């Protein structure tokens, strides 16, 4: 009786049972395995990932950086309408892709093109949205990657529902759902974490805290000790990790994925990183942040750090570097070529996918457009414009 009175009368999710709820709080310091100078920063809770995994991660980082640079160039050349670069956040992008198994799913945002590509989507397909040829350029089921989402935090709920369906069928899929620091302020963030916790689902919520939501600094998003402190309010563990240390990211995200797969429920991981470039090419970040701040973060570059570390450990040499650079260049060239070609666009596509069966109204509207184009002497197939 006393018990019922003092605590909620009903058993809560399996997680905090018995255990001290304070274990759900993040540590005071983000987890880090390689320090800014490239040296090992040992951590009792998280073993250093294998040399092999680190080498794969490094390849990913090199390619990621090259893709970001290439996409920026394509914007300048007018081949992409817009590009939200993840320059500076590549460690997060690559770790997110590497910790997932083939059957797992990724739910990315507009900023996560590199993670999408690292999961197997071709760079050209990933850029269809940003080029303007369609709203999304890949089949989500092929690579287990949801469409990149723009309405902030909405994809977190899709990730939760996706995991719920998998659990319903007894599959061991883990879902990794990404969002930014600003997105944690949206109602959908709250509802997603809560649903995941109440239904004890295998979802890893991965917040890339890059200090800004467009121009708005983190201090305007939260007064909490950290974003990871939100986790306890849902009854899931919250963890903080150095977002420019790919080793730490692999360890912390990897543990959360393993735990989720083993039936341990969801987790919230906050990575401390920084968006080195403007929000998109349309943005002017000199309006809201000091160059000195950006410069300070340049010195913590995730590539440099891992390169130093691998080189020091003899896991990387100049020849290896050269080979990786060439591989990345091949990817960039393919992307450039793909985007320099104009897609063959068919105006009828506007009407094809709205419903699985075209309604009489849509058919009528298409016929009107078709007649219009025929009258104007435009080939109905469209072609580049």
């Amino acid at each position, binding site marked *: 009786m006393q018990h019922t009175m003092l605590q909620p009368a009903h058993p809560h999710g399996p997680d905090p049972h018995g255990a001290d709820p304070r274990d759900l709080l993040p540590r005071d310091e983000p987890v880090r395995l390689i320090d800014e100078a490239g040296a090992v920063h040992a951590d009792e809770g998280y073993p250093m990932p294998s040399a092999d995994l680190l080498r794969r991660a490094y390849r990913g980082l090199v390619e990621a950086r090259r893709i970001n640079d290439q996409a920026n160039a394509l914007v300048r050349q007018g081949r992409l309408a817009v590009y939200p670069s993840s320059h500076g956040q590549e460690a997060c992008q690559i770790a997110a892709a590497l910790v997932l198994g083939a059957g797992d799913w990724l739910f990315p945002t507009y900023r996560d093109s590199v993670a999408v590509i690292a999961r197997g989507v071709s760079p050209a397909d990933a850029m269809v949205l940003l080029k303007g040829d369609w709203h999304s350029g890949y089949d989500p089921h092929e690579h287990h990657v949801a*469409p990149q989402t723009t309405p902030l935090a*909405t994809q*977190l*709920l899709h990730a939760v529902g996706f995991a719920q369906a998998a659990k*319903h069928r007894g599959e061991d899929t883990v879902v990794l759902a990404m969002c930014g620091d600003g997105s944690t302020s949206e109602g959908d963030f709250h*509802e997603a974490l809560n649903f995941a916790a109440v239904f004890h689902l295998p979802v890893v919520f991965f917040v890339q805290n890059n200090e800004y939501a467009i121009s708005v600094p983190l201090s305007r998003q939260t007064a909490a000790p950290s974003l990871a402190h939100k986790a306890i309010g849902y009854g899931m563990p919250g963890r903080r990790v150095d977002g420019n240390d790919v080793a730490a990211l692999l360890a912390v995200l990897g543990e959360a994925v393993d735990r989720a797969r083993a039936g341990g429920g969801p987790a919230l991981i906050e990575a401390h990183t920084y968006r080195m470039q403007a929000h998109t090419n349309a943005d002017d970040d000199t309006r809201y942040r000091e160059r000195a701040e950006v410069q300070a973060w340049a010195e913590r570059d995730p590539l440099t750090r891992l390169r130093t570390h691998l080189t020091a450990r003899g896991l990387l040499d100049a020849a290896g570097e050269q080979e990786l650079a060439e591989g990345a260049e091949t990817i960039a060239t393919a992307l450039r070529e793909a985007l320099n070609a104009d897609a063959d666009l068919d105006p009828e596509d506007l009407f094809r996918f709205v419903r699985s069966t075209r309604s*009489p109204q849509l058919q009528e509207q298409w016929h009107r457009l078709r007649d219009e184009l025929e009258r104007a002497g435009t080939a109905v197939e469209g072609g580049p414009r």
Partner: protein
Amino acid sequence: MTIAHDDVRQDAGPSDDGRPAAVATMTMAAALNRALADAIESDPAVVVFGEDVGALGGVFRITDGLTERFGEDRCFDTPLAESGIVGTAVGMAMNGMRPVVELQFDAFALPAFEQIVSHVAKMGNRTRGAVRMPLVIRIPTGGGIGGVEHHCDSSEAYYAHTPGLTVVCPSTPQDAYSLLRAAIASPDPVIFLEPKKLYWSTGEVDTSIVGRIGSARIARAGTDVTLIAYGSSVATCLEAAEIAASEGRSVQVIDVRTLTPFDDATVTAAVRSTGRAVVVAEAPGFASVASEIQSRVFERCFEHLEAPVRKVTGFDTPFAPPKFEHWYLPDADRVLDAIDTLHWLDEHGDEA
């Protein structure tokens, strides 16, 4: 009850009294409950969830007994968050399920509006058909039950205006059953609006009839004027038609049933045959589904019209408090008044 010609009857074999075995008289609430149960039973991908749909059986008891019968796996309560309900339904639909969610009242569907407009409606188009959204959002709609603020709104215009959504609103137990089954079977997302006022109305239901989305129904034949309505307003129109008949006027009533896609063929043919039309709906009139129907009829039947098409709708005010409801809601008298304005000619061919 008139069953539209194009609904498909699946033969269930005759019973002793000669009626098909699948026929029974029931309320619309029972018909909906039956449709949910039959859908759960026939397709393992169907799951029902929302607020209070489990042990309670829903605030209107539409999900009564489903959890007990099929288990928590197939019908369950969620945390109290409508965007969460719809947003997770989107994710489930992406992963092979057919979620059927209940949102308790029109006003309480609004927190989910972003998910509905930006994802439910657009996911299929966004992914060039690679990811369809076979989900149903059930919303008890409209007034006429003396409910307090936020419990009586009619929000079909918001959904009907949103490309990619199918919007259904039945007016009979048969259509409630058949169209809910069709909605759940549809590969596209359906907003399924259930007129609260009709939950306890009864009618025969033949569960072998599979509804067809996108087809209107001639609820009553008539030659002088066509009334066009859906949901609770169909009954209002039938009542008006009955009174008009006693005054010698033959009134046709069309039950639109599916708001989008709209059945232009049936409606246009009907109005062309009578030359006069009134559209009736509970929702506020401005930029409404009634306006849409009115303008479609005007445009498509212009040469056949003897008088302007009229509409009888809710006022452009928030829904009325319970004690004001009788002043607010369109009733048969108001429909008859509108019919009277349709430039009727007396026996000399002069306007009456």
